[in-house]
């Protein structure tokens, strides 16, 4: 009983002293974004401030790297910097509401077109002249976004490097997601995911982004033993985009004009992601007319980070061929 009373006294003291914080306090649980920290490199595209960096000679062929999610960021894509040695200009950016980019309300993700327009804005921001070669390198959702752009602008992109896009139609995407998101109520991983809801509730971006990061325990069946690198997940971006896809599945169909894109596309999938596999890779990649398909060994879904040693030489060879 003494211990209980002592605990309550400690609790009362802690509650009243200045050492307690709010989950929403800036910088305590998630890093600051470009809106709070002016030292973070950024650009403004379509009225939204994006975390963005470039490496290499700006007049070299430009590779725009598109991260996954929606809601993830380009920290796990940084291996692409190695292509600077091969005389490419590498452009990274965190999509709206993701990583260290500006946070927005859910209305900012009301259609897929905002992502495509944002990508076009980034290309135009960095492009030196109309003759500069442009390559899109997308991972997962980023590969879907790249395809969405190409579907609207076939034959304007000189090279396309795609790693495990969920699908180019909603049916393909939901088929893949249903394999990766299997809920098993009696397993630790599932309960860790839902049990957290009684510990943290919130409506501000700091709290929601932090809570989202705690759900990334690495307990997935995409073949990755550890959690990929990231700075800060965009929880509102992620949930609003999923809502958008469920309510407007036709917007996730990127195949209308895809067959008119003539250039060869590099498409890779991982050896260890059992939810994907060659069969799904063949199904999705067949939406393109001209595809070079490769399996990347000894890695799961996070190919750009954990499968880079196998991925890099394939990219290099492909780019030498198509440019």
């Amino acid at each position, binding site marked *: 009983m003494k211990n209980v009373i002592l605990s309550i006294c400690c609790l009362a003291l802690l509650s009243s002293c200045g050492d307690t914080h709010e989950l929403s306090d800036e910088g305590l649980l998630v890093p600051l974004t470009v809106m709070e920290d002016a030292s973070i490199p950024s650009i403004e595209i379509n009225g939204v401030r994006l975390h963005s960096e470039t490496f290499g000679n700006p007049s070299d062929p430009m590779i725009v790297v598109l991260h996954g999610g929606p809601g993830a960021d380009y920290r796990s894509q940084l291996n692409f910097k190695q292509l600077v040695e091969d005389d490419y200009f590498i452009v990274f950016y965190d999509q709206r509401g993701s990583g260290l980019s500006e946070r927005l309300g859910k209305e900012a993700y009301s259609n897929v077109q905002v992502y495509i327009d944002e990508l076009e804005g980034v290309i135009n921001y960095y492009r030196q002249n109309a003759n500069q070669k442009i390559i899109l390198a997308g991972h997962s959702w980023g590969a879907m976004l790249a395809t969405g752009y190409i579907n609207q602008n076939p034959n304007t992109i000189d090279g396309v490097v795609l790693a495990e896009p969920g699908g180019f139609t909603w049916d393909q995407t939901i088929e893949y997601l249903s394999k990766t998101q299997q809920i098993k109520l009696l397993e630790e991983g599932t309960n860790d995911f839902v049990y*957290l809801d009684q510990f943290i509730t919130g409506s501000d971006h700091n709290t929601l982004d932090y809570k989202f990061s705690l759900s990334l325990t690495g307990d997935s069946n995409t073949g990755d033993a550890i959690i990929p690198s990231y700075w800060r997940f965009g929880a509102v971006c992620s949930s609003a985009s999923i809502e958008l896809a469920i309510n407007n599945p036709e917007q996730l169909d990127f195949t209308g004009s895809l067959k008119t894109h003539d250039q060869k596309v590099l498409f890779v999938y991982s050896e260890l992601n059992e939810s994907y596999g060659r069969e799904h890779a063949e199904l999705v990649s067949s939406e393109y007319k001209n595809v070079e398909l490769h399996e990347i060994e000894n890695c799961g879904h996070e190919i750009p980070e954990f499968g880079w040693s196998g991925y890099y030489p394939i990219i290099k060879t492909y780019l030498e061929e198509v440019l």
Partner: protein
Amino acid sequence: MKNISIVVILLLLSNIISAQSLNWNSIEQNNSSQVYTNIGYDFGATVQLGYAYKLNFNKPIVLMTDFSIPMGAELNDYKFRIGAQRNIIDRGSFKTSVEYIGVVRRYETNLVRQISIAQMMSITNGWYKDGWHVGIEVGYDSSILSHLKHTEEMQRVYADIQDAWFKNTSAYWYYGLQTSKKIGQRLELNMELGKTNARAQDVDALLPYYFNFGAVVFLN
């Protein structure tokens, strides 16, 4: 005055808890001690074991404590509750009871260990007969204070992440139906089904529902 003192002490001691579905007719007619168990969904598939004790005043107070864990391979998550229920309105078969529970809950993954001190308050209106009852429950659960300690894996994501105490980390309303049916002299089966809503503009839980199926054994 003595009754009030006990309630005040209980309120001070119990920082966090959740409701136990009680048939006040059974409580008033039966013995002082009971053990209860529940299985269901309460922010995860959970199992719960508890003990309740009736204090006989002009209106009885039921003290209770229980422990629940979510299903899974590791016993690093749990919820411990201690509190009291009291019948405050008694008009024949219609009764109204209030409950205050203190809760300590723990959550641990490869990223964080969180311990929360919380409280639950609820009111239940019900129709209570000798062998059964139905009731409507409305309650509020809020985390008063939580301590977050992050693992090296989380520190690799964000090197400046803080291990610290945080206040008001969660709150949600819960409301639902409860019912019970007595089987013989010593056993009662009960069931709860309800929904949760996070406070104000907070984002709701992924699965904002709870469901419990339980049994109460009257001991002596």
